[in-house]
């Protein structure tokens, strides 16, 4: 059952990631493919016993971030500008793409070479309770810094989107 779910989710994630990059017609198609990719990744997180991260993935990425993307795309009302300039230096880009894929696969092989069998995790691993307790005891400074960062991001977004650049 888990093996079947892994293959379903990972194929969906990779295929929709290709859809994000490969849809030349409109950025809207890319954004909708991005939603599918994020949801499939959330499923993979749940398979990895990380329920809290999977939940946050659905709420923050599939919920907030992609909606923000769609909002901006529709606000700007862009048409057909995706493919422009994509054909410059096709040979160099193709070679670079092949090298990038080969290097990444080789890296993954190396990283996963010395793998051990998975340990059995204790009851409650990766639940909201476990992660929340860790966040508010051992990692409370990180949470505070993240809050300051979010505040700075809000202020920066308002300032940047409001003014005209001289």
């Amino acid at each position: 059952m888990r093996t079947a779910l892994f293959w379903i989710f990972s194929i969906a994630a990779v295929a929709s990631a290709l859809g994000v990059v490969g849809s030349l017609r409109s950025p809207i198609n890319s954004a909708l493919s991005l939603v599918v990719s994020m949801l499939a990744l959330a499923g993979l997180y749940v398979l990895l016993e990380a329920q809290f991260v999977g939940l946050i993935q659905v709420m923050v990425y599939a919920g907030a971030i992609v909606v923000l993307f769609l909002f901006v795309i529709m606000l700007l009302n862009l048409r057909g500008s995706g493919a422009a300039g994509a054909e410059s230096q096709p040979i160099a880009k193709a070679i670079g793409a092949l090298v990038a894929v080969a290097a990444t696969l080789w890296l993954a092989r190396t990283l996963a070479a010395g793998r051990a069998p998975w340990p059995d995790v204790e009851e409650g691993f990766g639940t909201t309770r476990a992660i929340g307790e860790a966040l508010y005891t051992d990692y409370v400074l990180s949470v505070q810094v993240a809050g300051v960062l979010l505040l700075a991001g809000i202020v920066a977004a308002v300032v940047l989107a409001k003014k005209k650049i001289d």
Partner: protein
Amino acid sequence: MGDISGYHFQIVAALIFSIGALGVLLRRNMIVMFMSIELMLNAANLSLVAFSREIGNDQGQILAFMVMVVAAVEVAVGLAIIISLVRNRDTVNIEDTSQLKW
């Protein structure tokens, strides 16, 4: 979990990261390039969570959570920059916005 191991999850993460990197390299639409950066961040998150499961320690999940916070801030600021650029230049093609190029 049968024949599925951390190796498989790392391969999926590597594939998604490659696709995101290709998007940044090949596409010239700023919004699509930005989505490709999001894909790369998500691939890194998947790798972190998979290693966290393999070690049996939840620190990787907390790090993935922090990456999500930073990604949310980055999206807000980046899209504000894109809106500002489109208002002033009326284009999302990265080749037309080269005033920071040396």
